[in-house]
Structure formats: structure tokens, C-alpha cells
């Protein structure tokens, strides 16, 4: 017999002759044998030698085989140590007792070497099977622990990246199941330099690691571009191009992106493949849905990607409810899905919008009863523009290399006016000036306002009076997209001048357009509260900069900032 099939066998038999005979049979079959004269000795020997198989006489002095079997099985634990009873008993009841005490089989006296050999062999097969099962179970457990640990570490790293944003802002409430990331869900929020808030709720196809892998580059683009002052359209284009480049063909990311402008009291939305989001009034009525109008990110080639967004007003106290499909796909015991209708019923029944978030969670709990790990829910409230502009980024250099005497002109015309956003580039340049760094938020706001005024009112001739109410608001942005799609005549010119001034310096920004201009006196004379949604740009610019002037019949806006 090959050595690896040889077993350590314990034989307990009180009859000396039988004991010798048995030991001889078993030894001849190639096994190692230990012998005991009674149950007590058998248990002690078992503990000491750890045999792999036990032959046990049922009736023995001191401790009988039944009790010995129980104790041996207890000592063996989860490993299978087959016990074969040696018995001259022939009553059914006695044989049953043998099995009940933990015996696996029995052989009747007188012993047949052939039968005994076959039984030992069969029991050994069982023993090995059990050992394999246990080993594999332990291996799976180890792998599982390992995987959980890896997920924990990956999540900790990711949380540092993802939550470097402003998800903790008091106007945001969100729930993400702890391991939603590994189901491909992603929620990010960050302030732009001018204090707008960008929010992304995303959902990668697939589960586990593959779904989580794409989240990191997406978060990087989101935070990087938001911090630099890029708008939604540019950020979306970059995210789509990046995901298209790095993801396999069958993977993509459904995403809903928002730009929440507290200053302008409006929200800009792009939804590609996410369930409808909802815009709700301060008293909880459904005002509009933020419906998916685009293909998810990472599918279309950059040149075919559609970055068009929708803009809607969002007054103070109004709110947005965003969700991932895990919410709608929560199922009950009959595998029915929670679905859009039930969600809308919860919204209709809700009396206190502050509690809507809890109402939805409760409804899910009542419906499904089971916690899912791919639920993302986010409630965002519009608040007064307190202008707690995000802290300016800290720089460590001394500022000695800071350029303090220069000027720059930049003129945009034709197609450049349609897609290119010059503001982040100009902002980056201005941030080279040490003394302007603390003002990057103000600069971003001012440059953005002046540029959009020059483009929208100056060149496109849009009437800001349209934006007085919600429907006019939508009409305004519809007309804007329509006119931009046509040939745009004329140009917008930026002139920046930085010069030393006293101990510090002075920045002059002039933004000129070749449009028709406007009656400066009359617009500036209008009190702010009469202007509704319109005219905010002018007010904002005046509030933020020390010197704001409109020259050349409204075609040139000039502001100065000193430090």
C-alpha cells in the first residue's frame, strides 16, 4: 500500500485474542495500529495519537464503546474520524445504538479480513471527502476575508478621494449603502471657484471591482475640472472621453450631473441613463423631472458626444431628489419591483418635504424588508447665496516669481463662441498673480458673468427680461441653444491688465462685445427686486468688485480689483 493511503488506526477491544487478531489483520493491510483494552484507554489514546480511524468494541469494561464513541467524536471536532463498531450484537436496537452514539458503520464477529479491509477503505474515502470539503470551506472563508479586507482598504482610499468634496454641506442629505461603490454607484459634490455646486450621481455597469475601477478617474476629472472653474459641458466632455478611452466597450457609466447656482437661483442638469431626478417646490409639489436625455458616459466617441444641458430655476427652499436604480429595483418577497409609481406615490403623500428623504427610506424598508447594497439617494436643497465661497486653495510658494506688470488681449469669434469656455484659462493665468489668489472665487464669478452677458445679451441679443418666471427661464435657455447653433456673428474680447499699485497691485478686466449695447443708465437704475431672475449678473458684478463700469454704450464692461 502506498504510504499516503496508510492510516493510523485505533483498535479498542477487551478480549486479548480478538485484539491481537484484529491488530494483525489491520497491520497486514499496511496501516499503523494502536490498541486499547477498554473505552477509557481508547479515549486517552485517541487524544494522544490522533488516529484517523477507530475500531471500537461495543461492550467493554470501565467505559463501553458507546460512551467512548461519543467522547472521541467530541474530541475529533469537525474532522471526520470514522468509527466502526465491532460487535457480536445482532438485535436491531443495539445496532441502532451504535450509530446513534456516533458510529459510522459496524462489522460483526467473527471478523473477515476482506470485509474489514473493504470497510476501512470505504470509510477512508468518506474521511478524505470530508477533509477536502473542510479545507475548501476554510479556503473560501479566507478568500472572503481577504476580499472584504481589500474592499475595506480600497473604499478607505476612495473615500479620501470622493469625499474631499462638499457632500457634507448642510443643504445636502444623502445615503449611500456602505459598499455601494462596489456596485458601481458614485456620488460626488464640489464647489466651483465662484461658489456654485457641482454634483454627480453615477452608476457604472456591472458589479464588484470592475464597476469600482472606473470611479477613480471619473472622480479625478470631476474634482479637478470643477476646482478650475470649468462648466458642466466641458467637464462632461472630458469625463466621457476619458471613460470611452479606458473602459471596455461593454462598460459605461450612467450619470446625472448638476450645477447648482446659488447666485443665479438656478440649476443646470445633464442626465445620461440615470432614473428621473425630481425638482420639488418648498411645499413638496413635484415641479419637474430631471429626465435622462442622453446616452450614458463612455459610449459615444468624443465627436458624437452631446453635452447639451437643461437649465431650470430653483428658488430658495426648493429641492432636488436624486436616486440610483437600486431604489427603484428594490424588490419584495414576490420579486416585484418598488418602481417609479410607488416612489411618486410616496412623494405625493409626503406632507413635510424635510422628511421626504426619510419617507422614501421607510417606504423602501416596508416594501422590501431587505437592505440592498446598491442604493444611492440624495436630497439637495436650494439655499440663500450666503456666499460662503470655498476656501481658496493654499499655495506654498512665496509669490516672488509672481508676474506683476503685464497685459493680455483675447478675442473669440465664430465657432469658438459656441463651445470654448475661456474663463478657466484666464482664471488660471490670473492665479499666477500672488495677490489675486485669495480672490479666485470672485474672479471666477465676475469673468463668468461678464462673458455670459457679452455673449448672451451682446451677441445673441437674448432678452434677460425673459427670465422673470420659470417658463420664461426655460424659453431663454432654449433660445440661447438655438441661436448658438446658428452662425454667431461678431466677437467677444477680453483685455486683462495687471500693474503694480502702491504696496500691491491692480487688475483691470475689460470685456467688450461687438453687439448693439444697452441703455446702461436705465438698467443700472432698476432696483434689484424688480429684476426677478434677470439682471442678476450686473448686480453680482457690482457687488463683487470695487469698481464696475459699463462703457461704450453698454458694449464694454470694466472692473478693477486692487490688493
Amino acid at each position, binding site marked *: 500500500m502506498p504510504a499516503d493511503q496508510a492510516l493510523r488506526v485505533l483498535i479498542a477491544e477487551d478480549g486479548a485474542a480478538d485484539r491481537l487478531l484484529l491488530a494483525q489483520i489491520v497491520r497486514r493491510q499496511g496501516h499503523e495500529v494502536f490498541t486499547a483494552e477498554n473505552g477509557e484507554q481508547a479515549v486517552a489514546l485517541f487524544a494522544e495519537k490522533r488516529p484517523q480511524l477507530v475500531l471500537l468494541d461495543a461492550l467493554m469494561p470501565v467505559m463501553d464503546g458507546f460512551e467512548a464513541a461519543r467522547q472521541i467524536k467530541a474530541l475529533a471536532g469537525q474532522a471526520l474520524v470514522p468509527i466502526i463498531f465491532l460487535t457480536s450484537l445482532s438485535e436491531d436496537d443495539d445496532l441502532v445504538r451504535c450509530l446513534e452514539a456516533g458510529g459510522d458503520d459496524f462489522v460483526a464477529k467473527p471478523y473477515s479480513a476482506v470485509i474489514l479491509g473493504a470497510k476501512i477503505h470505504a470509510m477512508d474515502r468518506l474521511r478524505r471527502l470530508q477533509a477536502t470539503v473542510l479545507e475548501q470551506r476554510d479556503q473560501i472563508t479566507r478568500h472572503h476575508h481577504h476580499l472584504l479586507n481589500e474592499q475595506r482598504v480600497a473604499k478607505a482610499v476612495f473615500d479620501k478621494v470622493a469625499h474631499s468634496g462638499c457632500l457634507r454641506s448642510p443643504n445636502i442629505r444623502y445615503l449611500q449603502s456602505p459598499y455601494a461603490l462596489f456596485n458601481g454607484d458614485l456620488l460626488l459634490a464640489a464647489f466651483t471657484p465662484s461658489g456654485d455646486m457641482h454634483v454627480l450621481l453615477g452608476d457604472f*455597469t*456591472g458589479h464588484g471591482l470592475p464597476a469600482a475601477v472606473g470611479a477613480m478617474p471619473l472622480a479625478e476629472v470631476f474634482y479637478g475640472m470643477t476646482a478650475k472653474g470649468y462648466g458642466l459641458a466641458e467637464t462632461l466632455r472630458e469625463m466621457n472621453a476619458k471613460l470611452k478611452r479606458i473602459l471596455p*466597450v*461593454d*462598460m*459605461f457609466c*450612467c450619470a446625472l450631473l448638476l450645477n447648482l447656482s446659488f447666485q443665479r437661483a438656478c440649476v443646470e442638469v445633464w442626465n*445620461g*441613463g*440615470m*432614473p428621473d431626478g425630481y425638482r420639488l417646490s418648498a411645499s413638496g409639489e413635484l415641479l419637474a423631472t430631471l429626465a*435622462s*436625455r*442622453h*446616452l*450614458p458616459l463612455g*459610449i459615444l*466617441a468624443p465627436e*458624437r458626444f452631446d453635452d447639451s444641458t437643461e437649465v431650470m430655476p430653483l428658488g430658495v427652499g426648493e429641492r432636488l431628489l436624486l436616486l440610483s436604480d437600486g431604489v427603484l429595483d428594490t424588490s419584495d418577497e414576490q420579486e416585484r419591483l418598488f418602481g417609479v409609481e410607488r416612489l411618486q406615490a410616496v412623494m405625493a403623500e409626503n406632507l413635510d418635504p424635510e422628511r421626504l428623504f426619510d419617507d422614501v427610506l421607510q417606504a423602501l424598508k416596508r416594501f422590501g424588508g431587505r437592505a440592498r447594497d446598491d442604493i444611492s439617494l440624495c436630497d439637495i436643497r436650494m439655499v440663500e447665496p450666503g456666499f460662503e465661497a470655498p476656501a481658496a486653495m493654499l499655495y506654498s510658494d512665496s509669490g516672488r516669481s509672481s508676474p506683476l506688470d503685464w497685459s493680455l488681449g483675447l478675442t473669440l469669434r465664430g465657432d469658438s463662441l459656441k463651445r470654448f469656455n475661456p474663463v478657466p484659462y484666464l482664471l488660471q493665468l490670473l492665479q499666477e498673480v500672488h495677490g489675486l489668489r485669495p480672490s479666485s472665487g470672485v474672479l471666477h464669478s465676475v469673468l463668468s458673468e461678464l462673458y455670459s452677458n457679452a455673449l448672451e445679451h451682446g451677441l445673441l441679443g437674448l432678452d434677460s427680461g425673459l427670465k422673470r418666471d420659470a417658463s420664461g427661464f426655460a424659453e431663454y435657455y432654449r433660445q440661447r441653444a438655438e441661436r448658438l447653433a446658428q452662425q454667431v456673428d461678431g466677437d467677444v474680447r477680453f483685455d486683462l491688465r495687471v500693474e503694480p499699485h502702491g504696496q500691491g497691485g491692480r487688475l483691470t478686466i475689460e470685456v467688450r462685445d461687438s453687439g448693439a449695447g444697452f441703455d446702461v443708465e436705465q438698467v443700472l437704475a432698476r432696483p434689484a427686486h424688480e429684476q426677478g431672475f434677470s439682471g442678476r449678473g450686473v448686480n453680482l458684478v457690482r457687488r463683487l468688485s470695487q469698481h464696475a463700469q459699463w462703457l461704450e454704450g453698454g458694449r464694454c464692461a470694466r472692473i478693477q480689483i486692487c490688493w
Partner: protein
Amino acid sequence: MAVETDFSRDEKKLTIKVKGRFDFGRHQEFRSAYERQPERPDTVVVDLKEATYLDSSALGMLLLLRDHEGGDDSCISVINTSSDVRKILAISNFDKLFDIS
């Protein structure tokens, strides 16, 4: 077979029928349905008449098929979609890539 194929040589049209759940479990079958064709079809029809369910990995599989058939130059229709399936395809705006009916 949960995925059946039929290739009409006259029309150079490949029809792929998916039965039951159209999810990750069908991945291999669905792929070989179009990869094993000896000839390149002009059009591909994905028939979902007997498909009961469709998840996001099925959307991924449709994208793989589209890529295989030439991406933007491909001509793929998805037919016999139930209202549930149509809803899923609509949220993702897949009608911009496929002819869905």
C-alpha cells in the same frame, strides 16, 4: 438554447433571438451568436420577443455587438421589445444607437 441565431444569406441578415433572462448569464452565447458567423451580415436583428428581463450587462452586450458590426456604421435593430424592456432601453437612450421597435 436561450440564444438562437438565423442567418439569411439572400438578405445578408443575421437574426439573434434571446429567450428568458437577457443578463450576464447569456454573455458567452450571445457573443458567439455573431462572432461565429462565416460571413459579415449587412444588418443584424436582435429579437427580444421571448426575453423576459434585461439588465445593464445586456446593454453592454448590445454595445459589444454594435462594436463588432462596425460601430457607427453598423445597422442593428432591436425588435419585439416589451414595455418593460423598452423602458430600460429608453432611460439609457439606446434608441440613439439602435433601431428599437
